[in-house]
Structures are given as C-alpha cells and as structure tokens.
C-alpha cells in the first residue's frame, strides 16, 4: 500500500487488523456472539470476531444462522447499536457529599474512555452517529462526555455485502455503502473468497494501516467494492415513503393511529433498539444517611408515560399518542428540530418489536390513504 494517497489494500484475515489494534493499545469494541445474536462488546481476543454467520430478520424475528463458513461479515445489524457506548443506558453525572459545616461538595463524574476502536460499523450506523452528533454536540448544546467519547473513537467500518429483509437504508440514503465518517473501511468482496478490500478514510486510519504493509489492491478489486454494496442495495425490499415528513405532518388525526395502537405493546423496544433515539431521564438519588446524593441520567422513551409527566399528569398517556409521538418525531418533526431525518433505515425497530410492527408499512398506509380523519 502506498503511503499518503487514498489507500487501498487487501487483507485476507480481519483478525490480523484486530490483533494489530490490540497490540497498539486500543480497546476494540466489535461484533461478538452472545445469546444467539451478534452484540457489540469489548473483544477480548482477535478470535472473538465471528465468522461464517448470517442472520434472518423480519418483523419481531431475529435468527443468527450458519452462513458461508469462510465469510466474515455476512450478518448485518443486530440488537445492539453503538449508541450504548456513546450514550450509555445509565450514566452518573455527579456526586454530592454533605460538608461538615454547611452545604454540599459536588464532584462531576470523570470521563473514563480509553482509546477505543469501534470495529465493524455499518453505513447506517455511521449515519446514526451523525444524527446523534447533531443532538449531543450542536452548537447550542454540548454533552461533553458524548463529545469526548466520539472524538476519541476510531471507526473501522464494514461495507454491507448483503441486506436483511428489514433493511431500508437505501431509501434513506444512509447505506449500504459507507462514503464518509470512517477511519478504515473493509469490503468483503463478493465471489472472491477471502479478499477484503481495505480503504483508509483518514490520516488516523492510514497511520494504523501503514505498519501492516498490506498488498495493494488491483483496479479490479477496487472497482468490486461499490458493486458489492450496490448488490446489497438492490436486494432491499422495504423502503421509506419519500415525503413521509409531509405525509405525517398532515395526518395527525389519521384513523391508522388507532389501528397501530391496537397492536402496539407500548413496551418501548423500538426506541431503545433505535440507534438515534436519545431521550433520557435524569434522577437524583440519595442514600439513607442523607449525606450523599447522586445524579444519574438513564435512557427513557416516549413510550414511558412518566416521560411526558408534567405537574398534574402525563401529556401522552395512551399508546396511540405515544406511538404517534415516536413516529412523527422520528420521521417528520426531527427535520424541523435537526434539519435531518431521525431514521437511518437500519430496521431495528421492525426486528426488535416483539409484535413486528413495521414502520415502513405504517408509513405506506399513511401515504396511500391520506387524511382519513377520525370522526
């Protein structure tokens, strides 16, 4: 591989890259098999990287299955997203201790984030990080811990060579090809066994790849990269309605909200599996002595009735209004708030909904039958 240019190399075995990162002192968080799913956890050794696995996904169903034994990345997104690392489910913001004389001493929680690699990030997941960047570090508000974690994390992306039945990133323009926001991208080339095209996307990425001295990719191999993701895009059967932001804005009284609410469990799984949902609750806890208090931030959800509690009661009490809040925020009012969609088309809300409610199908219903208002 030539140094300093847009560099493309060929890697036979991705565990060699994991091993090199570990040897260089990086904490590698990546795909791992646990409880019959691919989860994102700290890799203890390079061999934790799964191989020969694929997945089958549909509404309310995920199955990890045997795939072609030699292939490394034929599964797509699973139950976890990188959100759980950048925006932890529970985070202590500060600790307060009562002083002997008067008042409290407040200690803000330190940011504990060793130099970290996210290994195996998919295109929709990079898009999701971009969405959360806009939420947590947007000029008006800056979550210092989020920003620090994000800045100190190296992204090793994987180009999707296949799509699950629940994927609709192509219609959201967020994948399956990774265009930006990565340090290193890996493309497992279709039909050419054991060849992974390695692309450096940043100086940090180039610096890591240089010592590996990977053999250069041929022009044919470089050209095969986009063809791989194009095939994955072409295989997607689900798509989001293009002007869904307007459709929902004009359909707040649509009768279909009642229909969805009949099926919806208001369990909150869609929001918690979603890589962009960012709502949280902040609670203060005290101990029995009353001398020690802590402030914690934890994931919350528009499906939690307490989430919309204001003095005197909750604003959104019914599953119907909670689902409507979720879908209209995700696909419509997110544009007003952040000038982008809150959906990246990863399909997790479809797969991990226990009853398989499908946001693309619901969007299609609202678009196909506009304005039937409740009477």
């Amino acid at each position, binding site marked *: 591989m030539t140094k300093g240019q847009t560099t493309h190399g060929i890697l036979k075995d991705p565990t060699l890259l994991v091993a090199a990162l570990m040897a260089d002192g990086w904490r590698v968080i990546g795909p791992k098999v646990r409880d019959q799913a691919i989860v994102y956890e700290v890799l203890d050794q390079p061999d934790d990287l799964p191989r020969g696995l694929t997945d089958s996904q549909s509404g309310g169903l995920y199955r990890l299955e045997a795939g072609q034994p030699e292939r490394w990345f034929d599964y797509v997104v699973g139950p976890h997203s990188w959100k759980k690392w950048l925006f932890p489910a529970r985070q202590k913001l500060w600790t307060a201790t009562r002083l002997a004389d008067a008042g409290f001493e407040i200690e803000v929680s330190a940011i504990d984030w060793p130099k970290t690699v996210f290994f195996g990030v998919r295109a929709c997941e990079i898009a999701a990080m971009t969405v959360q960047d806009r939420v947590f570090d947007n000029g008006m508000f800056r979550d210092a811990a989020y920003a620090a974690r994000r800045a100190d994390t190296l992204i090793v992306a994987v180009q999707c060579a296949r799509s699950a039945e629940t994927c609709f990133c192509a219609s959201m323009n967020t994948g399956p090809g990774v265009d930006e926001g990565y340090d290193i991208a890996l493309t497992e080339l279709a039909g050419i066994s054991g060849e992974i095209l390695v692309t450096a996307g940043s100086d940090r990425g180039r610096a890591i790849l240089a010592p590996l001295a990977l053999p250069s990719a041929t022009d044919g191999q470089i050209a095969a990269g986009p063809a791989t993701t194009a095939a994955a895009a072409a295989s997607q059967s689900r798509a989001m309605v293009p002007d869904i932001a307007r459709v929902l804005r004009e359909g707040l009284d649509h009768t279909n909200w009642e229909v969805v609410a009949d099926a919806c469990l208001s369990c*909150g799984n869609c929001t918690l599996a979603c890589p962009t949902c960012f709502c949280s609750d902040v609670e203060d806890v005290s101990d029995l002595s009353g001398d020690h208090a802590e402030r914690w931030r934890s994931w919350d959800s528009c499906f939690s009735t307490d989430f919309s509690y204001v003095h005197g009661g909750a604003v959104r009490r019914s599953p119907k209004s909670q689902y409507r809040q979720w879908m209209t925020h995700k696909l419509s009012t997110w544009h007003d708030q952040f000038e982008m969609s809150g959906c990246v088309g990863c399909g997790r809300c479809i797969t991990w909904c226990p009853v398989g409610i499908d946001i693309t199908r619901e969007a299609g219903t609202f678009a196909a039958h506009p304005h039937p208002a409740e009477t």
Partner: protein
Amino acid sequence: MANPKLAVWKFSSCDGCQLTLLDCEDELLEIAGKLDIAQFLEASSAVTEGPYDISLVEGSITTPHDVKRIKEVRAQSRVLISIGACATAGGIQALRNFADVAAFANRVYARPEYIDTLATSTPISAHVAVDFELRGCPVSKHQLLELITATLAARKPHVPTTSQCTECKAAGTVCVMVAQGIPCLGPVTQAGCGNLCPSHGRGCYGCFGPKLNPNAPALSLQLADLGLTPPQLRDLYHSYNAAAPAFDTEGRTHD
C-alpha cells in the same frame, strides 16, 4: 427527635418479601439506625405498640380475620405500603378466585369445617387505603431500599412503571422472544426485577405484575404464533399476579 417507627406485617404470603428486607445485610444496620423497628416478627419477637409511622404490609387478604386485622393495621399507621405480589395483587393464592374454594377445602382437609377462609384472595388496597404499592414476587431489594430511603426523605421513590423490556434493553440483554422464540411476558410486565429471567435465557413470568397501559391481547396473538395453546396462555397470565386486573382478564380470555 425520635426515629420514625417501622412496623412490618404479614398476611397470606410466603414471607419472601419480608426476607428481602432482612436480606439488606449491608444496609440493615443503617436502616436500624434511621428507623425504630417496632414490629417485625420475622426478625424479632420484641414488639413496641403502635401507632407506627411506616407500615410495610406483606401478603393478601384471604380470611375474615385478615379483613379485620388489616383495618387495625391501617388505623395505627401513618404511611401504609404494601409490598409484593400478594399484597398488591392477591398473589399466587388468588388462583382460588377462578375456582371453588369449598371444593378445595373438602378435598384437602380431613375436617374442612375448621377452615374459615374467604372465596377470594385480594390485595390490601381492596380493603384499606394504601399509600404506595411495591410490586414483585418477591420485591426487589434495590427498590425496597429506594422506597424506604425516599419515604424517610419525604420524596417520591424512583420505581418505574415501564415494561420489563426497558430493563433488558438497558442491560444489553438480547430479547429472548425475538432472537429465540421464547414466550415472554416482559412487554406487558412492569420493570423492577433487574431482568432476571431474560438475562438467563428464560422468558419473563410476570412477577412484577402488569405495566402501566399493558396490551395483553396484542401480546397473546404473538405468543400464540410462537406456539402457546390457550391453556398455556391462561396459565402464563394466571400465576403470581393472577388477580391483577389486566392479567386476570387476559387469562380468562384463554380459559
């Protein structure tokens, strides 16, 4: 100022929730330092007379004697908190609500005429005003401590009314129903147990009772798709929180 007086009462129950209080080993001395434990027969036979500032009530109401006694407990308690599935929903013994108790007594006891019991098992709140209900079979030690701490600090306890799924997702537990097809009551059950069963590859049994706004009919459709027969569905809802209204109704639908 004297410490507030705590009383712990037992009605029809297995004692497991009181045991959760004793299980607060590291915190027990601190609790004893903040509260005058005036009545707690499972821990001590030393009893101080009422009135009491805080009463924790375990167990359901199953006998005429229980009905009388819970009113006496209420009358001498400033704050009354029911703890556990028996006290908040009638417990597993509420299965009698769906059957003929006299027939049970005739079958089991040599002298059924000695058995003075009610036809139903009912929660404490069906008989007296309750200030807070702490769910669980048994209650969670963490939530019990939080409840005691909050009550002493005169603040609202942090006890979520969301689904069990919210605990699974926060812990990173992979959904057993979606990934393995294991029937699970988590989506209609209130959080609080620390996602005990799903984190061990089991479906939720509903020990913490129905969440706020449960949609059990919609979950049942999915559980039937996963292969549960109507009797299995009925038995799933009719267990530790059988008489909690949402589980009671849904279980009867499949009877």
